[in-house]
């Protein structure tokens, strides 16, 4: 069933506006939302965010961790962004905290693809720009490691962050190039890299050239 929806939505070269029913459900009835005022009493064990309002998307996540089991027992969030940004963050919060909670190690491994599967797909053009919640979650977990002085466990993406505002990494750029983005503009279309922090653009151009040479030369 999920596969079917997937195909319907994504076979239209990303021009489609169709959101799956699951996306709509999470957009109109978001789960694990942080309501204003709740922050003060929540006492999060970790907080992380990604994006900026200028980029059009920003996610902030708070987690509570059981120190014994190292599982995420609660996960709350806030998002500025479009329907898919809101729905994907909502779905991520469910994935992180459902069934007794995800272990920190497993949560660190969550990627946009995992969220997409659960959402029943998204219009192609929405994937790279709006599914950023996993980065906010990793930032929250790193924050927890920092607070609990487990500095050696902090993982910054397993890749190098190129854009400090959007937390776009060299891996993201590699992926974009592999998907056919061969100019800065096209890579930006997919990743929005540099829209919040243009100072990284020379590095981005270097990387595009590097990956183009590596894969297409």
């Amino acid at each position: 069933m999920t596969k079917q929806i997937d195909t319907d939505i994504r076979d239209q070269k990303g021009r489609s506006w169709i959101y799956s029913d699951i996306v709509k459900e999470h957009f109109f009835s978001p789960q694990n939302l942080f309501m204003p005022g709740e922050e003060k009493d929540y006492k999060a064990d970790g907080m992380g965010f990604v994006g900026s309002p200028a980029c059009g998307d920003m996610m902030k996540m708070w987690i509570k961790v059981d120190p014994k089991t190292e599982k995420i027992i609660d996960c709350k969030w806030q998002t500025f962004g479009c329907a898919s940004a809101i729905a994907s963050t909502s779905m991520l919060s469910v994935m992180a905290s459902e069934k007794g909670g995800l272990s920190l190690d497993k949560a660190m491994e969550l990627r946009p693809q995992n969220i997409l599967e659960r959402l029943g797909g998204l219009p192609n053009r929405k994937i790279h720009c709006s599914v950023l919640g996993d980065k906010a979650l990793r930032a929250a977990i790193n924050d927890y490691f920092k607070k609990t002085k487990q500095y050696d466990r902090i993982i910054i993406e397993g890749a190098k962050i190129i854009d400090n505002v959007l937390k776009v990494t060299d891996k993201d750029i590699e992926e974009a190039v592999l998907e056919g983005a061969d100019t800065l503009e096209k890579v930006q279309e997919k990743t929005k890299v540099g829209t919040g922090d243009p100072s990284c653009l020379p590095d981005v151009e270097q990387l595009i050239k590097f990956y183009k040479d590596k894969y297409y030369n």
Partner: protein
Amino acid sequence: MREVYLDHAATTYLLPAVKEEMDKYWELNFGNPSALYSKGMDAAQSLAKARGRVAKVLNCNSQEIVFVGSGTESDNLALQGIAKANEVGEIIISTIEHDAIINTAKYLESIGWKIIYAPVDKDGLVDPKELKKLITDKTVLVSIMYANNEIGTVQPIDELVKIVKDINSNTIFHTDACQAGPYLDLDVEKLGVDLLTLNGSKLYGPKGTGLLYVRKHTNIKPIIYGGGQEFNIRSGTENIPGIMGLVKALEIATADKEKEVKRLIALRNKFINSVQVNIERVNLNGHATKRLPNNINLTFEDIEGEAILLYLNEKGIMASTGSACASHSLDVSHVLKAIGLPYELIHGSIRFTLGKRNTDEDIDYVLEVLPEIVARLRAISPVHLDEGKHPQVKQ
């Protein structure tokens, strides 16, 4: 559920009277105006009359009206047709033109024309002083839209024409009046323009119809070749039902103009005032008074346009946004960029454009629903923009 269509700048429905007019020409009076038998000649006569009726509205000669297939085609004919008929030189367009102008200008740039952009101020008005500086003896064409489709700002076209012609009397002036059609004065003598674009789908007429007013003796060449219809400027068998519909719609709009403008301004102002009283941190984009009677363009801080649109849609309200997330190109609105709006505010912009069938009750309904939607999305949002400061994250 109540359905409230507030996207009249995108397109309008067809009025029954217009449809009725068109119905006569599909099956019964279907002739080709170029034919010599009576069915053809009847069609030719209807076409000639239609041209005369448009000429009356625009206060011009009927030979100066060229019927085309859309507003976009009319814009293309204006720019490309003038470019073809003249030696390569400079074209000035404003930074807030419709894509039909901007992308045609970009094409002309690729074949050697110099395209110069006239800047606008924060309200979207073309700065006359800046425009003055851009005009040279090489300026072949100036194209500035009458009223903007996104922010509704209305340009003082007559004054701009005067500025241009005072410096270079040979410069041709084109205005895209598609949005202005139902609301503003279309008298080409008063405006002083050489070319003016109108289309049917913005004034309760049929889609796929448009016209270009071409002032007598203006040097223009066709961009579509064929049987030489429309004074050799636009070939192709005339779309008589479409043309009759366009003309009828234009006449109705003209007859209703005074009353409808008053009614819409009252509705528009009620909308804007209520939103500004009942919703915090919302800004009006475009000029406060020099704006189309039906245009409301607002920025809701801290939230994103596509999300607002979809929540509105759930309530049966249809509007549009300048946010990148809702555009196929993922680019933000070039118009909102041109008036200097920062990205974070462009993302939260929504355009409501009123129309003939919107009632007081419709607006009351929107005004009842909108504050809840904004509050709901703001509750989800981690952003809290501080005026005059760099965007802040809620702590």
